[in-house]
């Protein structure tokens, strides 16, 4: 019996060692070439690589984050260093993980949490499953990034994507034809209780560290309605957190749903993101005193990146405008493009 116990332990230890070595190999591979990381994990890995204590504002949430708030605009207009740690379909457990990683190496003064993931369906077993997966991913990155083998074996899979501190420039246009999606009503859309536990963990941790938290809802007819607005507003009030629902600021933002969305009202393109970013820059600078680093030489790389961003943004917006004009005049350019 004892012999078998020893054998079993030895087997498991060797297995753990193998997994550790493979995980280290994977970590090294993508530290050499960040494009090797899967699209969904790119922002998380990039956040880990940011210079220590260089980020003042952290944004977490699902794809609504990296299609609405542009850190380069925050930088350009008021020198705030921010990073979008958003992931497509991010679960709150993942958001918590990103937040944890963010505060391990950074000292953000403000955390923006996009609220769409508060309504992502998870049951208890999904919660437990996420916890198991997170544990595995934390200590053995082979579980999270195992598909890297395809990129190592065959370089064809590597598609470099330009990310501006987590923000992605989207230029597609697919109009949202509906209207009045935030029509007033009395009901509340209940927030997932599993999601709440993670939100409250983040809020508690932020409060204990003196970090301000803001909930924000990105403009999205597909994901929001008045029932959610009511529930989120009440929830934020209960937690003592400020809440900005951009779906209720349609008149100020002037989102053109025929032109500013990439997928019929789910996400915004760069033209829509510019409007949202401008509004949030004003909101943040009026309500929070975040430092302006523009004249700090140690942040010179931000200036370079912002210059590239501005060029690409202008080009993309003018392309969208042209596409829109084409559609209105019925020319070939008006062809819809889907994401």
């Amino acid at each position, binding site marked *: 019996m004892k012999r078998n116990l020893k054998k*079993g332990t030895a087997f498991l230890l060797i297995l753990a060692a*193998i997994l550790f070595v493979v995980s280290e190999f994977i970590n090294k591979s993508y530290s050499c070439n960040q494009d090797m990381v899967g699209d969904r994990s790119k922002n998380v890995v990039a956040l880990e690589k940011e210079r220590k204590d260089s980020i003042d504002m952290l944004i977490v949430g699902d794809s609504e984050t990296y299609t609405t708030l542009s850190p380069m605009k925050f930088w350009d207009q008021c020198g705030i260093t921010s990073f979008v740690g958003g992931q497509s379909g991010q679960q709150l457990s993942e958001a918590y993980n990103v937040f944890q990683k963010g505060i391990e190496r950074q000292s953000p003064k403000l955390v923006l949490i996009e609220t769409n993931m508060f309504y992502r369906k998870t049951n208890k077993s999904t919660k437990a499953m996420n916890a198991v997966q997170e544990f595995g991913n934390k200590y053995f990155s082979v579980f999270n990034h*195992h598909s890297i083998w395809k990129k190592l074996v065959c370089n064809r899979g590597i598609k470099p994507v330009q990310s501006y501190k987590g923000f992605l420039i989207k230029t597609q246009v697919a109009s949202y034809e509906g209207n009045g999606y935030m029509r007033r009503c009395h009901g509340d859309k209940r927030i997932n209780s599993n999601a709440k536990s993670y939100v409250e963990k983040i809020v508690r941790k932020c409060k204990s560290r003196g970090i301000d938290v803001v909930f924000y809802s990105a403009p999205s007819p597909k994901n929001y309605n008045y029932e959610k607005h009511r529930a989120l507003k009440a929830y934020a009030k209960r937690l003592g957190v400020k809440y900005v629902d951009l779906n209720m600021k349609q008149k100020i933002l002037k989102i053109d749903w025929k032109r500013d969305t990439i997928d019929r009202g789910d996400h915004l393109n760069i033209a829509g993101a510019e409007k949202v970013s401008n509004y949030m820059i004003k909101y943040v600078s009026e309500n929070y005193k975040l430092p302006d680093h523009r004249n700090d030489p140690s942040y010179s790389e931000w200036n370079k990146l912002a210059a590239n961003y501005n060029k690409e943004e202008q080009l993309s917006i003018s392309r969208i405008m042209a596409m829109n004009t084409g559609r209105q005049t019925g020319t070939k350019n008006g062809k819809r493009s889907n994401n």
Partner: protein
Amino acid sequence: MSYTSAIYLAIFLPVTLIAYQLTPKKHRGKILIGASAVFFWSLSKWLIVYLAGAIVVTHYTAIGIERAREAAFDATPDEIELRQEKSKKILRLGILLVLGTLVVLKYTNFTFMNVTQLLRSFGSSIVYKPHRILVPIGISFYTLESIGYLLDVHWGKVKAIQSLEKTALFLGFFPKLMEGPICQYSDLEGTLFNNEPLQFENLKRGMLRIFWGMFKKIVIADRLAIIVNSIYSNYSDYHGGMILFAAVGYTMQLYMEFSGVMDIVIGTAELFGIKMPENFRQPFFAKNATEFWQRWHISLGKWLKSYVFYPVSVSKTVKKWNQFGRKKIGKFWTRVGTSALALFPVWLINGLWHGPFWNYIFYGMYYFTLLLIEVSIEPTWKKWMKKIHVDMKAGWYRAGQTVKLLCIVFTGEMFFRAPGLKAGFTMFGNLFKDFSLAPIFNGALEHYGLERMDLNVVVWGIIIVFVFDILKEKNKLSYEEFNKLALPVRWSAYYALILAVIILGAYGEGYQAIDLIYAGF
């Protein structure tokens, strides 16, 4: 929580094993029941009451049947008959309750929809709006197990279980809850209630089997599912080679998934020292459709044979037919008629058991027809072959049999997977339109959600599984032989398998978790 989820493998199973080992022997069954309840609850929540109900009904019906039968032994012939009638009545009531639950939950909408449709064709204006009926996981599996057990008790083949705990474990043992195998009581009674302590040998053997199953499921089947689902959901857009690819791909997906999950199930039971019956035995090496069903989903075939085919074969109707046939229509047609009478209910139930859809009923009837043809012409065929000196064991003849079998299986699975019977016929028709294999080989498959590297993994994975199947078929592969190899070789094989599952598995980013196919039946 399914058998391939991280929570099952990393939390549920280790916790159950530890709890089982730490519990005194006489209470270990309770740990397995508790684990089964947790497992069931994680999938079907409060619908667990249906399983609990089936357990209670099965338990007390079996005891009632046995008491009625036992009393009959020392009674007068009249009393014996009376008691047997009583036993039959109790049996019927028990079956009515467990089978009735299955029928109501699974077939109500199907029945009412078809009846109203029929009435509408006669001018009625009745409209039936289907209701959302929640069906507990595994109901089709444990219902058959319950019926089989009650019949066995009634026939005196097995003794009724006297402990409710044991009946609960027999029907609700968690490894077989989702996809079977459909166990007969005699399959499990030897090991299920022994409550033996964990053995290192069982753990090794079980874990190896679990990882082999994981390899088939998440490395091969889950990749194939992406491309197969993509083609089947837009089936009318495809023809020729792509339809063939979809049919072959789905058959491979189903085989890799179902047999893979069976490996996980049997491996899990082995961890606790419990032996479960095999559900697959290299099905593609069968000579014909009849043999195929002796190798594919064996437990369903065995159940249908024991509880439908045999009782029908010895029923009064068949006996009367035999008497009539021999006198009036000759030996050949009598045999055909007898086979038809016994096979028809088998294949109708087989089709219906898979679900309330016409394509499943068609699938059952498809095999009914094929098997009837095989049974009817087999003796004559053999005579002809002998007459023209064809060696039926020759390689070329066996190859021909395999090609014929594959055509039969692929066609059957095409209808089985199709989203409806009409869709099945559309696909079958499209198969012969503009037939070309070019889309399979010119890289077009890469547009269906799988990269070339994924396709390579699928192809190589299937080759590896079939090499192992060949070795098993030739009795050249056994765990005992593997266990005789030097420790470094064995451990290297274990690590290679585990790493293959972890690295090549179609899980996490870029992949979606694929539900178990048979868990939906």
